[in-house]
């Protein structure tokens, strides 16, 4: 057991830190909420440029193969860079679904042609990706999806509807799951397509979320003709390919978000220092100290549970169902941090941006509301518990 870094890794840390110090956009913290993990609509253009800069400096795709724009490094380097990004409170990556999911999945299943065509443009943010899994009648029970793809010569003709599709309104491509064999058992007849969002028949309608923002959308697919070369990982093999994506999604959550969690927690402690109750700072209140310390402990626990997961990866094991545990811990801890922010603000928690009385310009109100989605997006907490129960503990299916 050794948690120390090699001198090369320490050098990488110093390098990324210096780069961030020199290049961090100063107006960022003022313009958009510093502690938000979610790219907010008004910042998309800015975030596109930011990701491009990050890519050109070599801070994205560290573990991806060199020939596709990556650096061929290990997860430790990736973690180091994530830590520094979080410490600097740098802006989030806009093409997060591409970097976190589409890219790794294409690298794992794609043909050489597909890898050459898509992978590096994901990193550079030249092409933004969205994830077309959920449908109006299938969310948790994803394998029941009904979007149909019917073979027509070299093409597939696709009809159906996707929903809750984050970033579809700015996306160039979609990771699309569609049913190619309606007669096969439900997990068997699904195919994974790389869908060009500009094809005729693709219609995107933004949906407003409870935060007021519209990050996700409905996507209607009406006789969309997709060429056979856009199938990823083989016809009717979409379930296995799609699960790989989900595993990477949860892994990406574990990496990126644990470090951001710590930053959010630091912000919470600052908040508690400056808010008073009955004439004294909340950090002097014994009950509040207990709650803050517990969140600190939980955040650290996630860090070291993550480190054990990374060690497994470094020893050549694949990300497995354990990633579900990491996602669950992150969700729970983050939601409790956001709840506590509201408790600390007390009656001021009711005020949103626009009021001079709003604490920290009302930024915690947005992050608090946004955190409600955490236990739904990327697979609900109930589903994660099923996965842990069945695939880690070996309990019978329900």
């Amino acid at each position, binding site marked *: *057991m*050794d*948690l*120390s*870094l090699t001198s090369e*890794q320490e050098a990488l840390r110093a390098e990324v830190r210096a780069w961030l110090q020199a290049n961090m956009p100063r107006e960022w913290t003022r313009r958009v909420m510093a502690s938000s993990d979610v790219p907010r609509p008004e910042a998309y253009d800015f975030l596109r440029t930011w990701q491009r800069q990050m890519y050109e400096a070599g801070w994205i795709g560290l573990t991806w193969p060199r020939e596709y724009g990556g650096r061929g490094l290990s997860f*430790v380097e990736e*973690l180091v860079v994530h830590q520094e990004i979080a410490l600097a409170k740098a802006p989030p990556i806009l093409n997060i679904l591409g970097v976190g999911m589409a890219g790794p999945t294409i690298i794992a299943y794609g043909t050489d042609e597909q890898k050459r065509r898509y992978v590096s443009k994901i990193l550079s943010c030249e092409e933004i990706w969205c994830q077309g899994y959920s449908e109006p009648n299938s969310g948790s029970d994803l394998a029941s999806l009904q979007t149909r793809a019917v073979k027509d010569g070299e093409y597939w003709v696709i009809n159906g509807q996707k929903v809750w599709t984050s970033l579809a309104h700015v996306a160039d491509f979609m990771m699309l799951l569609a049913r190619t064999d309606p007669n096969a058992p439900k997990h068997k007849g699904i195919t994974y397509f790389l869908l060009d969002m500009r094809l005729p028949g693709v219609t995107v309608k933004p949906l407003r979320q409870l935060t007021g923002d519209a990050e996700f959308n409905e996507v209607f697919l009406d006789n969309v003709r997709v060429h056979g070369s856009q199938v990823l990982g083989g016809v009717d093999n979409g379930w296995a390919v799609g699960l790989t994506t989900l595993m990477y999604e949860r892994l990406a959550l574990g990496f990126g978000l644990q470090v951001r969690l710590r930053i959010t927690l630091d912000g919470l*402690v600052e908040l*508690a220092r400056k808010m008073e109750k009955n004439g004294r700072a909340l*950090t002097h209140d*014994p009950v509040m*100290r*207990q709650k*803050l*310390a*517990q969140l*600190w*402990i*939980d955040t*650290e*626990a*996630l860090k*070291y*549970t993550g*480190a*054990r997961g*990374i*060690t*497994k990866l*470094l*020893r050549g094991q694949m990300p497995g169902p*354990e990633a579900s*545990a990491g996602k*669950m*811990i992150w969700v729970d801890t983050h939601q409790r941090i956001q709840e506590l922010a509201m408790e600390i603000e007390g009656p001021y928690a009711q005020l949103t941006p626009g009021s001079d009385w709003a604490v920290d310009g009302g930024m915690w109100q947005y992050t608090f509301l946004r955190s409600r989605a955490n236990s739904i997006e990327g697979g609900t907490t*109930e589903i*994660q*518990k*099923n996965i*842990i*129960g*069945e695939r*880690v*503990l*070996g*309990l*019978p*299916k*329900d």
Partner: protein
Amino acid sequence: MNFGFSEEQELLRATARKFFENECTSTFVRDRMAEPAGVTDDFWTKLAEQGWLGLVYPEEYGGTGLGFVDLTVLMEEMGRASMPGPFFSTVLLGGLAVLEAGSAAQKKEWVAKVAAGQAKIALAWTEPNARWDAAGVTVTAREAGGAFTLSGTKLFVLDAHLADAIVVVARTRESARPEEGITMFLVPRNASGLDVKLLPTMDQTRKQCEVTCKDVRVPADAIVGSKDSGWAPLQRVIDRATVGLAAEMCGGAQRVLDMTTEYAKIRVAFGRPIGAYQGVKHRAADMLVEVENAKSLTYYAAWAVDENSPEAPLAVSMAKAYVSDAFRRIAGAGIQLHGGIGFTWEHDLHLYFKRAKNSEFTFGDATYHRERVAQLIQL
């Protein structure tokens, strides 16, 4: 970076698991619960032969010279077996105190004997005031003519009834700062005026005593470390012992989870194994998450202690706070998910449930350690 166990450590785990499965069966544990000693000479000798009594002691004192990460592996297995006896109290409290602060002569005399299984040393620290801070130390040691006279009562002292000697933590000087003026003394168990009374305890696998000092006279060379400045070394001992305790708790928690999942696969209700019901499955998933986090924090604490990291006290308190709550909840959930059978004396679950309660209050419960975390992160 590597946050996993080595091949040697995995081998130690396999060896230990097999050893305890053979030597520390449920029947053995229950026999020890029923009698005051809580250990047999035969079992203790076997632990010594395995080299486990001196695992973390330096080779010059008859030990193996391994670290706390190695110890973590061993103690997880001890916890899994709900092992009775004075391993924790002798090896990680009394013995470690002498090793940490003792003179060359004391170390030579005692540490090697502990490692060889020839002597047991208890640590008498906590008192009826049930405090874990320095102000809780009120037993006095008055100096007169080059000797000291100890008076007062120690409570919750693990295995003092088995000890050949007891390290007694006493106050040699009143001071505005309670951390000052604390001294450790190595007192022979048969010293005149020293009375040890076994306490009836909920967890019968771990014996506790009341230790009363009525004008117990000891010479100056009974001091372990230096006069008036015993608090710092004591804290170091407690922090390291707490890592071992947390590891033992993780092992117990894992065992409860294992028993519960096995049972949930075979127990049928309404025509299906109960593990198919989400009320059961999701609770088991919650247990797993807590076990994993508990281990992660414990391993980190063990590593920090081995590295002498300045973060070690924080790491230890994070671990003990988390594990205290986790083991208690997991053991409770284990009973719940077993139904009636889980509430019987015959089933082993209650051994873990009771051990969880004992361990929770050994050297600081979650509330105490969370406040210590708050202080250490400068809240």
